[in-house]
């Protein structure tokens, strides 16, 4: 790690007296104790991680890193609470089981009964958070998340078709295919007019409405029992998680996240406008396509593992951004926030006083609807 140049100050216009006031005001507002502020000041000079003699470098915002780590820790804590709930196993036993020891009984409860659900919740939440961050950055709109613009409905249509009329083992393929097809249709429709942020979203809403009615049609045609389980799946539930689902979902999420990381840096440059980014040597069209593919892949993984759970992809990037106070995609904080949100919501479903455990999508839908209302109410100010 070497010291970067303090770019910010030298770029400040020195002509007028007004801009000079801004940094002070911001420093004053920071709710940090003096010592932490000193740490921040020390970090501010070196915001880059350079490897291989400077050929590979990555800008690091300490606050983002801290937020991502904190959220990951919280998500793990939520997972631990879910594993040890009702006092059936103690945290110590969980640790023993996870490190390969422990009694057979504790092992059964943790590994067979609870871990699949908890771990799947973390993985799916992470995938949703990441997909939301990418989509929102792509459309430069906080509403541009896969659940609003219809990709989830498309993935659900594909999955439903395979679930009701084909082989249940093909559901992931169906979800991915449906999601991709919908993304392609929405993109091409939105681009045919002049691309404006909101147009993509409105077109997506229209297409999503169409697909939702297709889904309802498929449900009304199915047998009642089948329709009911499919409906449960459509709301989004972690209740049916089993061990075999976990490795493919986790691997796919990790691979897609790894693919997304190098794209994000260039994606953030698109914020300056497509023309400026093109002038900086970024292949804008190809980059958008790649990011779109990765994001659709991430949401397809989530949908095929747990059904189209709403609002996590919408809320996670926004909440993470409020915490990091950063600009840009904020991929990793959003990922961690998604994992935290979904595991917390799932934990909530297990503790709500209802006749049976509600599917997690109901909780995220209710809470997320309120959040979306708040988001819309705030935008005007």
């Amino acid at each position, binding site marked *: 790690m070497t010291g970067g140049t303090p770019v910010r100050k030298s770029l400040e216009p020195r002509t007028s007296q007004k801009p000079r006031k801004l940094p002070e005001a911001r420093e004053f507002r920071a709710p940090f104790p003096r010592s932490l502020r000193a740490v921040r000041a020390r970090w501010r000079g070196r915001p880059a991680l350079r490897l291989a003699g400077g050929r590979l470098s990555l800008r690091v915002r300490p606050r983002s890193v801290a937020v991502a780590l904190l959220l990951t820790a919280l998500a793990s804590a939520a997972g631990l609470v879910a594993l040890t709930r009702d006092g059936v196993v103690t945290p110590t036993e969980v640790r023993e089981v996870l490190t390969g020891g422990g009694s057979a009984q504790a092992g059964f409860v943790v590994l067979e009964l609870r871990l699949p659900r908890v771990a799947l919740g973390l993985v799916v939440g992470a995938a949703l958070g990441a997909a939301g961050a990418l989509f929102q950055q792509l459309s430069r709109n906080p509403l541009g998340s896969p659940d609003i613009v219809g990709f989830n409905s498309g993935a659900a249509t594909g999955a439903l078709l395979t679930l009701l009329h084909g082989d249940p083992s093909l559901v992931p393929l169906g979800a991915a295919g449906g999601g991709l097809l919908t993304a392609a249709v929405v993109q091409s429709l939105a681009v045919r007019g002049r691309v404006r942020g909101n147009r993509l*979203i409105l077109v997506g809403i229209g297409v999503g409405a169409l697909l939702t009615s297709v889904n309802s049609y498929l449900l009304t045609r199915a047998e009642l029992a089948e329709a009911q389980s499919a409906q449960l799946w459509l709301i989004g539930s972690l209740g049916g998680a089993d061990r075999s689902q976990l490795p493919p979902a986790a691997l796919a999420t990790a691979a897609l996240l790894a693919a997304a990381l190098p794209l994000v840096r260039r994606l953030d440059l698109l914020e300056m406008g497509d023309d400026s980014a093109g002038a900086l040597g970024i292949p804008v069209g190809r980059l958008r396509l790649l990011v779109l593919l990765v994001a659709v892949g991430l949401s397809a993984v989530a949908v095929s593992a747990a059904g189209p759970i709403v609002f996590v992809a919408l809320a996670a990037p926004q909440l993470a951004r409020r915490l990091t106070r950063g600009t840009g995609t904020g991929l990793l904080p959003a990922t961690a926030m998604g994992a935290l949100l979904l595991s917390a919501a799932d934990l909530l479903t297990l503790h709500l006083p209802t006749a049976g455990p509600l599917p997690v999508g109901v909780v995220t839908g209710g809470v997320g609807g309120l959040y979306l209302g708040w988001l819309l109410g705030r*935008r005007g100010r």
Partner: protein
Amino acid sequence: MVGLALLALAAAGGIAVGAQPLPLGGVLRALYDDTAPAASVVREVRVPRTALALAAGAALGLSGAVLQSLTRNPLADPGILGVNTGAACAVVAATVLLGTDSQAAVVWWALTGAAVAVVVTYLLGRRGPGRGGPEDLVLAGVAVTAALGAVVSGLGALDADAYGALRIWSVGTLAGRELSHLWHLLPFLAAGAVLAFALAPALNALALGDESGRALGIAPGRVRLLGTLATVLLCGAATAAIGPVGFVGLVAPHCARLLVGPDQRWLMPYAALTGAGLLLVSDLAGRVVARPAEIQAGIVTAFIGAPVLVWLICRERTGRRA
């Protein structure tokens, strides 16, 4: 006149065509002859169904016209703005949680839900960056619809019996309705329609903007309130009868506007006519396409309406058209 003729033709089609193939002569005879073999099918199934499609379609079309002119928003539709979902949510909640099943109570629940939803959507949409422009309202409506939709599906997941009963209703269907459904709704529909038609001149004045409207002797606030009331009456009653059917209220006023232009006094009756025709034809198409099963009318209207919505959005250039 042409519209009326087409509507009559569609209504005749609605009575003549059904899951059970009947010769046209038999259908005609059943209409005036009690003892005809087809009498029960025609009188108890097809006539009520057709009448209900006409009434509900007209109500949805009319409410769409009122909403579009109230909000000066070409994308306004009771389905998109969450009014229908609000009504549906209230009905489902009343059925599942309180065990309501009398039709009269269902109508009141639907009206309440519709009223709450429309108020929330207005409040949210008014604060967007475009100061209540078309897109803000639509987005607010989507938010409301999404949250209420989650509630509906959650209630369905809790109660298996209710899910079985409401699964088809919650798509929007005309199947299995009786004339008594219609009689329960008619007062509300009539009140809403009278209110809407009475407001037509005031809405015309408001189309010029609030200030010009005020100069012409209109109180914008009162007109909005009454217009919203009319919408709630029309949509709530229609939803109670046939479930949340979307997009009729979006498409019908646009068709009417193409036919007669923007004058509300002409637009409203035509929107009602077009809405009735649209719902009737959708229902008919749903019955014919998948014979002997049927596709629910709400799904057919979504298939017709969603492309229209996308087309409207793509065509939209400057943002606002009256």
